[in-house]
């Protein structure tokens, strides 16, 4: 059985239908890229999977790890191993990055029936994962994303992912706003976290990111439907021809 099974998923935002029947099956260990033009529904799909209540699911089903994902609260989805790297990470003034992350990790551990990590054990994990992400140590004691540069925010997202060790990671336009050096660092972090036990959905507008995070599958989303699926070479095709023809296919 696959880790994530999406069947005929329809979703609205403010009464407008954005997703018009998505079918997608993802197994543990796989990296799937979701590509598509602006407004195709890529980010909506990511948000619906993570449980954002701005979106109403009107039809279809999503089974994650054998459970009905759509019945779960956002925090329960997170505790069951779904992690979303946000396109626009939110600032939380006054709450230290470390404190936030420890609260998150312990909430997940509690759900798994594990005891809270104490501060010392937590710091040991943090130090190890920080090295992986080449994180600037000063970012840890600063307030969550507050005053971070665009690159620092995105790197912080992947760092959180490294600490929380999700089963399914959804990267929502993680490349947006990054220069090439920052992109390489973020991609290296993501690649280091690839594992047979972990699936990833990489949402991106541009093929550029996929030079560094090489996907197993590429799906092209247009007007709320997956119009084409293929291997990593599909991303390169798109780079050549653009999305124009594909949008016609969806109509």
């Amino acid at each position, binding site marked *: 059985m696959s880790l994530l099974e999406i069947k005929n998923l329809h979703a609205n935002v403010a009464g407008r239908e954005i997703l018009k029947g998505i079918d997608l099956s993802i197994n543990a260990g796989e990296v799937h890229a979701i590509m598509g033009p602006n407004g195709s529904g890529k980010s909506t799909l990511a948000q619906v999977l993570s449980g*954002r209540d701005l979106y109403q699911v009107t039809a279809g089903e999503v089974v994650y790890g054998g459970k009905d994902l759509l019945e779960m609260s956002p925090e329960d*989805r997170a505790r069951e191993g779904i*992690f979303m790297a946000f396109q626009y990470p939110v600032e939380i*003034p006054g*709450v230290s990055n470390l404190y*936030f992350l420890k*609260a998150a990790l312990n909430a997940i551990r509690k759900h798994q029936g594990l005891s809270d990590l104490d*501060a010392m054990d937590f710091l040991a994990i943090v130090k190890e994962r920080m090295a992986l992400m080449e994180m600037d140590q000063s970012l840890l*004691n600063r307030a969550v994303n507050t005053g971070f540069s665009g690159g620092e925010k995105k790197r912080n997202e992947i760092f*959180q992912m490294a600490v929380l060790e999700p089963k399914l990671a959804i990267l929502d336009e993680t490349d947006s706003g990054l220069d090439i050096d920052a992109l390489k660092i973020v991609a290296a972090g993501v690649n280091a976290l690839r594992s047979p036990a972990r699936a990833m959905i990489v949402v991106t507008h541009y093929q550029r990111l996929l030079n560094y995070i090489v996907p197993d599958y590429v799906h092209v989303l247009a007007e709320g439907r997956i119009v084409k699926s293929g291997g990593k070479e599909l991303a390169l095709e798109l780079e050549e021809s653009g999305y124009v023809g594909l949008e016609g296919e969806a109509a």
Partner: protein
Amino acid sequence: MDEHRFLEENRVSTSANTIETFANQEYKWGFVTEIDADTVPPGLNEDVIRLISKKKNEPAFMLEWRLKAYRHWLTMTEPTWANIHYPPIDYQATSYYAAPKSNADRPKSLDDVDPELLRTYEKLGIPLQERELLAGVAVDAVFDSVSVATTFKEKLGELGIIFGSFSEAVQEHPDLIKKYLGTVVPSTDNFFAALNSAVFTDGSFCYVPKGVRCPMELSTYFRINAKNTGQFERTLIIADEGAYVSYLEGCTAPMRDTNQLHAAVVELVALDNAQIKYSTVQNWYPGDKEGRGGIYNFVTKRGACRGVNSKISWTQVETGSAITWKYPSCLLIGDNSVGEFYSVALTNHYQQADTGTKMVHIGKNTRSTIVSKGISAGRGQNTYRGSVKILKSAAHARNYSQCDSMLLGDKCGAHTFPYLEVKNTSSQVEHEASTSKIGEDQIFYCRQRGISTEDAVSMIVHGFCKEVFRELPMEFAVEAQKLLGVSLEGSVG
């Protein structure tokens, strides 16, 4: 990475599950202890004041002082300028004196204390014995209007520190009382201060002699218990030249359904090079979710930095009371003296708070800092009212004010009234203000990381208040966080 700092923070923050622990609880500390109170019938006149003074076996000067205040109070009218609304208070319907029955025979040690009372404190999480042994905190516990337990007095006595109930100080140190009482907050200062001066029944007194640094945090837990009994506390703290003292005041009150009047006065005096740090966690009963009941809290708190290089810091966390009217202030008289005010005020349901500070710069090079954090939830109304006055004599004075408001939901309100008055050209005044709303996107971000909505709100609010919390002594910071958690119950979702 600064590990030490993180570990420290972690201790202060405890885990984010404080809200969860308290979720769906009614006011946790709402219960009435059954102790026979020796209560004077409701009403106020000169006879009642004479009776109070007599019951407390006061010297003549005290009675005269009370009567003078009372006669002046009769000529005053209740202030109406604050941004608070409440039905008229019937001052004749309040009883002005209640003391535990055992007053005549005061307990010599904890063994002599009414076990019912000790159980009350236990429910409040204030096991006196433990505090005595472990925390190193001397507790002057005020139950209703009479102090019933004072600890560590001897140890403090060795250093020449006087710490105990106000009544006791009137008996044992009338000279100090005579010298300082009413010198910071005159008995005619304002309507509520005059009322307090006339009828106050007890409170705390502390004197730290020259050059002595008080080795422990002094703390008092106030508590209103007997039904319909107004609480009129009077506190006087004096730090003589070069002395230092940190004082903690905390309140919890039992649940009841009639409004209760509370009008306390606190006076602080800091002489040359002295420093007083006064921290409050205020959690009087706020009323129920429909706005019924709750304490009316009209407090006058003022400190005088009389000496050169003296410093007075007020830190307050106000989560309780139906009505809060409170402006802990500093008179910066001595050259180079420093005044500070750090405040978190939270209003939920139908609570109303009009609180802030007054910094009066009189001496040269005086400095003041104001950091105010107002949180409004439910239908709560939160007003910051602050005045910075720099007199002509206060050359090179400096003030920095920061007033931040946070709104949870769309039925609450935040209001800011800063008054600035600068009478010379060498001084500097800075004022910053912000208003923010806890965003859905902030909460969703936390939830996506596995953190529940309530914990997320708690975390975001704590982050907002951090600059104030870090001014609190450690154990108080933890208590303050718990109180915020309790007070925010049901404010989201």
